[in-house]
């Protein structure tokens, strides 16, 4: 039985459709109820819905053999997994944003508000820039407005929220999209089934290009 962790929400539903098209359907998942685990014994698959940021943990710890997680989560937590495919879904970017017209003159420590402390620290370490990281869990955009930080590091999809808060993207750190990931040990013992899924999803991604 192949255990598959899917992220709850719209992205997860799109991803499940791809698995279904790959021939690994599980009709009970389409039923309206509050169940979180769905199994198709004939196809030897078991799906479960988990919080998107938890998918990588389920896969790294072997509760799921494969799963779909955002690149932002993979970069932030660096789980020890295989990253098998870019599904090119949920595309956005990790970016530095600041109040319109902000210029970093490099004369003092840059205050950076973010939920993604690891990504922000890595980015500025590569630039050799001294920063003070302020870890926030939400409403990151208001940090520079209230003087809590100089800039923010956050996910930017359309840029509308930034614009409405008078912020603008200063630089893009990395493009983000959903990735098919696999547990390293699970991959060894369920390789054939995982490769079949990977190959079919790869073809579907190509068709959408």
């Amino acid at each position: 039985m192949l255990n598959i962790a899917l992220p709850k929400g719209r992205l997860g539903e799109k991803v499940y459709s791809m698995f279904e098209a790959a021939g690994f359907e599980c009709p009970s998942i389409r039923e309206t109820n509050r169940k979180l685990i769905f199994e198709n014994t004939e196809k030897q698959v078991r799906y479960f819905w988990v919080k998107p940021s938890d998918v990588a943990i389920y896969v790294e710890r072997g509760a799921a053999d494969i799963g779909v997680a955002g690149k932002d989560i993979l970069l932030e937590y660096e789980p020890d997994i295989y990253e098998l495919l870019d599904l090119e879904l949920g595309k956005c970017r990790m970016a530095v944003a600041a109040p319109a017209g902000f210029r970093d003159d490099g004369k003092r420590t840059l205050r950076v508000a973010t939920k993604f402390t690891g990504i922000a620290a890595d980015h500025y370490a590569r630039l050799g820039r001294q920063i003070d990281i302020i870890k926030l869990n939400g409403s990151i955009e208001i940090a520079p407005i209230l003087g809590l930080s100089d800039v923010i590091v956050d996910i930017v999809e359309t840029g509308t929220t930034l614009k409405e808060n008078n912020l603008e993207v200063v630089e893009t750190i990395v493009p983000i999209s959903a990735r098919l990931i696999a547990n390293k040990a699970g991959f060894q013992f369920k390789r054939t089934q995982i490769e079949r899924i990977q190959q079919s999803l790869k073809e579907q991604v190509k068709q959408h290009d």
Partner: protein
Amino acid sequence: MIDQTILKSEERAVFALRSLYRRYGYAPYKMSKFEEYEYYIRNKDFLVSDRIITFNDTNGRLMALKPDVTLSIIKNCEDLPGCKQKVCYNENIYRLCGSTRQYKEIMQAGLECIGDIDLYDICETVFLAAQSLALISEEFILQISHLGILAAVLDRICPAPGFRQAATGFIAGKNAHDLIRLCREYGISPASEQILTGFVSTYGQRDQVLAQLEALCGDFAAKPLQELKELSALLDTTPFSERIIFDFSVVNNMSYYNGIVFNGFLSGICEGVLAGGQYDKLMQKMERRSGAIGFALYLDLLEQLPAPKSEYDVDVLLLYDSETATAAVAETARELIESGKTVSSQKAVPPKLRYRELVDLRKEAGVC
């Protein structure tokens, strides 16, 4: 005589592994639980994490609880031309655990072969790694890679340190999509890009991989490829040949490891249980002339293996009271144990004890 059936997986493994390693001439090596902190910090890049538990000894020296076994063994081995020192160990080490960021005590068993090592020693070590896994479970996979091949390819395609580091990271993660993006960012030619991504998709049965490697890099990585071929031919003669595959996602730290590297997996355990390889570069950094190869098996992970669940904690609950003759309790307990049953002698029924059968000497003594 030790009853093997009552031992936990990791305890059984300790006995079996030591016996295996002794048969191949590996001498048990016992080391102190701590070393001077400076020794580890000088070689911190070799360690899985540079976060080490430290304390001051009575002379004020800063000491460290051992985060690694290999460094301690190297320190105590001599360079003896033509000879090899072979040691095996069973030690606890103390490391930061990746996901929880908490320190963890890890039980390790393993071996190191240090000295004038050659292809035979490499084959023997790989064989012993596979045999170690086989002793624990038939369902195992040993992945082998050769860093000499990867290094030759990277030297030829793009020796820039930033590219090498990122490319090896993507190969380790079987991540072809980001590897392609990296190649394009660095202006790597499509032909070279194809060679590099070939290292992500080339894995599995050894013969197939060797044929693919020949086409990918046979002209400029001939020597390490030949070594891999010879190793594969020798592994063909082992009883678990099919469980040993080639996979270039085994990367390790290329500053220390140079030749054959390998990882082992057991079905039912969610992460690698065995890791090892040839680390001549570490020896050179420590100004040693010898070569070296070894591996470690993380025994604490064996707890994850499914264990038979018993419905009962004990076969017989033997109840007695102050009126019961001690000799009667002793004799009854001995008879039951000699008949192969497990026995817990108690004066009252422990609330959580699950027992199959009750023998009540109080009743027989006419108390109840």
